[in-house]
């Protein structure tokens, strides 16, 4: 029974993805249909058009197996292995340097916008408020670790 529920919910997610792709093609947008679907589902949840219970189990399941779904696309790297033996290594350096820059810029801008003081008090408040929920949250984040 639980499996059927999960499958039906994933089919609903798939339908929303198809709507997103249709909107993308129809308006000729440069944004992936899946992102349009994500925004659509988010708005529908906020407006309570779709109750959370309709997608909760399906979303949790599909996100738990997320890394599996991008393995086939990643395997395509086998056609480019020679690249990483030569000049492609420079691209690896570019990615690392650019990631370091991203951390610096995103961190500083958001720290500046958040206002500098109160960082540690905010942290403590959240931790002491959510003792019972804290362990559940950390389990949830540990699940996310498998994603990339």
């Amino acid at each position, binding site marked *: 029974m639980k499996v059927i529920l999960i499958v039906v919910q*994933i089919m609903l*997610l*798939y339908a929303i*993805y198809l709507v997103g792709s249709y909107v993308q093609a129809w308006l000729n947008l*440069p*944004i*992936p*249909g*899946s*992102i349009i*679907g*994500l925004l659509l*589902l988010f708005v529908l949840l906020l407006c309570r058009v779709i109750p959370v219970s309709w*997608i909760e189990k399906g*979303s949790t399941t*599909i*996100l738990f197996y997320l*890394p*599996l*779904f*991008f*393995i*086939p*696309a990643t*395997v*395509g790297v*086998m*056609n*480019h292995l020679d*690249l*990483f033996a030569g000049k492609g290594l420079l*691209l*690896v350096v570019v*990615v*690392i*340097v*650019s*990631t*370091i*820059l*991203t*951390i610096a*810029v*995103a*961190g*500083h*801008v*958001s*720290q500046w*916008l958040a206002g500098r003081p109160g*960082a540690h008090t905010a*942290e403590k408040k*959240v931790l002491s408020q959510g003792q019972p929920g*804290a362990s559940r*949250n*950390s389990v949830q*984040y540990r699940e996310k670790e*498998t*994603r*990339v």
Partner: protein
Amino acid sequence: MNIMLSAGIVVSTVFIYVVMAMIYKKFRLPVLMPALTGTAIIVIVLINLNIPYSTYMKGGQWINQLLGPAVVALAYPLYKQRHQLLKNWLPIVGGSLAGVFAGMLSGMLLALALGFSKPFILSIVPKSVTTPVAIQIVNHLGADSSLTSVFVMIAGFTGAVCGVYLLRLFRIHHVIGSGIALGSSSHALGTAKALEIGEQASSMSSIAMTISAIVASFIAPVVVWIVFH
């Protein structure tokens, strides 16, 4: 025959993934992440058996199909964190936006300066974005998504391995700032690392990961257009 082949590929990919996920669960080392080890094993098997990627994709495309609904499902964790998002929307959206711009521009310009051709530069554009979205962004840009997957993993590892040290180096002390920096630069791997700083940093990081993915898919075509004009 073709259906048998496809089914066999799907079953073996799922099997390899499940085994690798079990190994990762036991040791919890970033290098053992199933996306990484699973891909490596499949690549090694295919090369040794002389099976071309196009043959593998006859089955692989069925798994690939689930990327779309999986991205849609990201709306659920975002919805669950809507109160955090609303309360701190300015540092979250502002920081993610700045991170996306910095990541895309620096990646593209560095690759351009080193003399790489357009397909490589395009595949580096969404490297800070979580893989499922990065693949879809790069497909839209018309470049090779398999290279992007590798770049996304490298970006993730950079944040996971040196993230905390870098935050200290750049004097980013604020919990929100730390979370946004890790989430918008190193997606889920950064988010896992942010948990070491604290619950709030981790939650900020996971929001930043989703917001950055959304923002990046809007901005990528614009940035590409600016750089190549």
